């Protein structure tokens, strides 16, 4: 499928990126070229091939990752907020939502 500049704009919006017009111009053809390249996969018959979701080894798949349902310590409010750009009264403050 050929990719148009409007597709790139839509994708940028979905990805929460505000691209400058110059960026749109550069990214458009580059992404189109890459998409064309990856479309070579369409030439391959994958009927009845299961997707490799997860990427695990057989040993990884059988590893039990459950833990006991016990309280464990966590970061705590002060540490969690220590790197926040705009903390206020124990919260992450953000610009108005509505």
């Amino acid at each position, binding site marked *: 499928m050929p990719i148009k500049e409007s597709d790139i704009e839509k994708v940028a919006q979905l990805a929460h990126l505000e691209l400058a017009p110059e960026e749109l111009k550069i990214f458009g053809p580059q992404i189109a070229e890459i998409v064309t390249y990856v479309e070579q996969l369409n030439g391959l018959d994958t009927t009845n091939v299961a997707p490799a979701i997860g990427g*695990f080894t057989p040993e990884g798949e059988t590893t*039990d990752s459950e833990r006991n349902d016990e309280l464990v310590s966590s970061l705590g409010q002060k540490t969690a907020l220590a790197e926040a750009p705009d903390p206020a009264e124990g919260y992450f403050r953000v610009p108005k939502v509505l």
Partner: protein
Amino acid sequence: MSRQTVEAAIGAAEKLNDTLNAFLAIDREGALQRVENSSGALAGVPVAVKDNLCVVGMQTSCGSRILGDYHPPYNATVIQRLIDAGAIIIGKTNCDEFAMGSSNENSAFGPVKNPWDVTRVSGGSSGGSAAAVAAGIVPVALGSDTGGSVRQPASLCGVLGLKPTYGRNSRYGLVAFASSLDQVGVFAREVTDMARVLGVIAGRDNHDATTADTPVPNYLESLSGELKGLRVGFPTALFGEGLDDEVGRSVKAVVDVYRELGAEIVDIELPHAGYAIAVYYIIATAEASSNLARFDGVRYGFRAEEAPELRQMYRKTREEGFGPEVKRRIMLGTYVLSAGYYDAYYRKAQQVRTLIKNDFLTAFTQCDAIITPTSPTPAFAIGEKVNDPLAMYLNDIYTVTANLAGVPGLSVPCGLSSLRLPIGFQLLGAYWSEPTLLKLAHSYLEARPFTERPPVNADNTD
């Protein structure tokens, strides 16, 4: 003794940084303090760490502006294990932004220079760690490998670089790029050092559900012994188009060495290897677009100013905070996951990933390890491929298959090109076969020691 070693490492890191740009942060004071009471298997060993692994008391920038001056509140598990073993982390190394790149030119803080020729790239994305080890600043360093980001810079800088089996090392505290492909890897000049460090950091971690509960062998003990009986697979089809002549010849010469050492060389095929880059750039970007959604200016890092509304703030923060390659990959990943395209791209790629995985499973019934080049060419010039993302992606042609299949891969230096640039070969093995790969590397380097040093190195700082 170890204080002197650490002091020398820090001195060299500081002195060479103007030339190499390998470090984004050097912790002189902290390192010298920690060395006083260090004890354990790696007591007093100076280590450099890629700047996408969390270390308390140091910055973690991931080579990006979006993390601002981020200081993580906890240590990555692999870091904690190094510290517990007495290793001294001297600083954080430069890398492509969020580990996305094959040349280190995508770092927001400038490219790392190759110690063999400072007009050339170090490789990437863990270029700073590779250059720091190559230049003799530290004996070992950590990096992360999602599609070759440890092995390729190791090859371009003339050092050893290991990507272990998926699930061997914990990813807790490694800033995620593509979670089903990422693995923490090790750089070293000596196989014994690599074996020691891997033995310390490997193993199950409750903080990372993808670590496997598989015993960690004694990697040092596995190094000795003959190669007789070992079968090395040679995938003839991968030694064709796109491979530099000198690299091809060097790697074929390695095959002859293995034959001399008693290994049996068997022809093998990886029929779907040619699709690996396409599969990789769908899966890796899809996972990245999701992983990098967390960088939104709310909880940590950089926040754009003058955005009176929340959504605007997200967009401005990400627009100003991310560099071009990261944006490109987030968009590509968003595109392949978007409504209507998921089956055509993402699901298809995951199916072909199964075929690539099965290729390896079949190959490893016929051989114990596979030999390939690590990179199709030696180090290229800074700026050479920067405007052609697809050409840059093709650098990873030999390395991405291991990440897609989850198998381990090890790059080993095997000589210099006519321009005196390092050439490396790659050994790929079945799941958990790190002992075999290390043994093969060890035997090769015993037979053909790589003793050349780059012109920019710690003993030559004038």
